């Protein structure tokens, strides 16, 4: 059995981390089971809600990576450790990133635009079509994610994604968050902070961080609700999809791209 090997390493690693987590979180001896579970969902999600996002590229600050860092922190991606013996450059190409900053320049006009890019949560996701086991799926409320219980790690979804949004976990994961389970050999991507949404939350970590930093370039919410801030913004400002010709009807839209 291979149980003890990763566990022992995990325990050694964990002692270093736990001090931080437990001390920051609560008084000694009282365990943080469900501070986030203020309103855990009791009924299945329905398509009455569709989660979406509007990103205003004119507000996206050059050089700022607040959304990336927030996502890393929220989902335990900052806990990734370069395997011993690997070069930094190789590790950087293999470590998971659910969101990244991209800067583009128009070939004709020279105009430069910056924006965060993550899983676009398409209505017709190519990744869902190609997954052999159905692990890559689209939830009724529009979130496209990976059911890691049945993911076999074939990476076909990564081939199929038109936004190169998915990451494959190339190494043993020693430390992970309870709210964001992740392990070697499966594929993952932005899931609109689904652990927050399922516990009564309505914001994503990237949106919160961007707002906290004063840019407010990311607006997340229910795009099927005409009164939500994101729907009102979508009605007011012009927006476009990345790769609109693919007609995937993405949940993430960009203004001023």
């Amino acid at each position, binding site marked *: 059995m291979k149980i003890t090997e990763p566990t022992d390493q995990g325990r050694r690693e964990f002692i270093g981390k736990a001090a931080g987590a437990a001390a920051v979180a609560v008084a000694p001896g009282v365990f943080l089971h469900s501070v986030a579970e203020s309103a855990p969902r009791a009924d299945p999600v329905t398509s009455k809600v569709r989660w979406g996002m509007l990103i205003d590229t004119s507000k996206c600050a050059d050089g700022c*990576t607040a959304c*990336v860092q927030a996502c890393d922190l929220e989902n335990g991606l900052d806990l990734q450790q370069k*395997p011993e013996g*690997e070069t930094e450059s*190789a*590790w950087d*190409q*293999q470590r*998971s*990133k659910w969101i*990244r*900053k*991209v*800067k*583009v*320049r*128009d*070939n*004709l006009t020279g105009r*430069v*635009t*910056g924006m965060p*890019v993550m899983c676009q949560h398409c209505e017709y996701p*190519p990744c*869902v*079509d*190609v*997954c*052999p*086991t*159905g*692990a890559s799926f689209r939830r009724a409320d529009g979130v496209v994610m990976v059911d890691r219980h*049945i*993911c*076999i*790690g*074939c*990476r*076909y979804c*990564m*081939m*199929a*994604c*038109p*936004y*190169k949004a*998915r*990451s*494959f*976990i*190339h*190494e*043993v994961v020693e430390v992970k968050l309870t709210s964001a389970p992740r392990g*070697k*050999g*499966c*594929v993952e991507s932005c899931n609109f902070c689904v652990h927050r949404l399922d516990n009564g939350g309505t914001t994503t970590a990237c949106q919160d961080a961007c707002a906290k930093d004063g840019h407010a370039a990311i607006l997340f919410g229910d795009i099927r609700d005409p009164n939500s801030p994101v729907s009102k913004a979508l009605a007011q400002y012009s927006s476009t999809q*990345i*790769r609109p010709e*693919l007609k995937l009807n993405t949940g993430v839209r960009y203004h001023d791209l």
Partner: protein
Amino acid sequence: MKKVQFSEWGIPSPRYWGLLAFLAAVAGIGGLAALYMEHHGHWVTGMSNQVVWGTPHVFAVFLIVAASGALNVASVGSVFGKKLYKPLAPLSGLLAVALLTGGLMVLVLDLGRPDRLIVAMTYYNFKSIFAWNIILYTGFMVIVLFYLYTMKERTMSAYSKPVGVFAFVWRLALTTGTGSIFGFLVAREAYNSALLAPMFIVMSFAFGTAIYILVLIYAFRADNRSLGDVVLFRLKNLLGVFVAGMWYFMLIYHLTNLYITENHDFVAFVLRDGGIYTAAFWLGHTIVGVVMPLGIIYHPVLGQSRGWISGACGMVILGGLATMYLIIIGGQAFPMSLFPGKTIIESGFYDGVNGLPAAYAPSMPEVLLGLGGVAAALLVTMVGIRMLGFLPESLADSVADPHGGETAAAH
């Protein structure tokens, strides 16, 4: 045509066991490489989040495509009624099963979670061509094994033709499925083409026939069996037709892309700017995989020589591997066109900044796994022809020629 007798491969025991030991060792090392990759995770390979399918897939897809094509020799006999091919059929079936075994072994062992193979066989998303391929590949094995049974069991010989037709159609579906793995992807300019499925079918004919000829020549020479020119040249000419057909599809693929402005970057990448991928195209696919073999096959002198024919077959195989490398890895390395009309000047996730292709270099575990699959396929073949009467005792012109040696005499 005289009734052809079959017998087990009779090479001396020490030589047989030595060969088996060598192949088992290579296959075993491939297995250990897979264990190493699975235990540590894929960080030990050259694959990354940019190039997610690497050398194991190159070998696996090549073997699977070749497996389908290897059955072609038997199909020509059963389905198209060409009597000359009938004695060649059992080896063809065995080779098909063996190559598929090797290919599937590599594919499954490269999964991120190979321990979840049962999940792959019980959870199905029928919109996925991958899911269909799982059924097509395992079904192919069963059908070919049954096909071999109808060939060898005298009381079942009446079923040989209908099962052969079924196997032929199943093969076409299988190879269509394999080509469609890529053809169905809208995301990348290299794929997203209906042409890939038929291209893979013709490639399967070429690779499968080349491997068949090599195995036939070697098996017969090692056991001092006579392989006449009639049979060999018929197979050689068949190979030539398939290689030319494969080249035709590659030509149409690039010509069409040249007319599609949005694909011009990709055509330039393959034909001129792609570094190793350009080399794989011109040197690997075109020169080694097409021009040289065709030159040999249709040469009045070289095309008559066994050595040169074997060389041509080897070149088709090498060219085939290069083509697979170009399609599978080149297709991923080429930057995805996220923002047409714009250039990506910075990215946190290697999005082809300033047109830079993704980096990939084959790593030792990947290569060992791929070679292990090849060895496993050859191992199954060697054991098969040794244990079972799948090799005709003689394919000399007087025996194998359906026109009773007159074709040879007429040359």
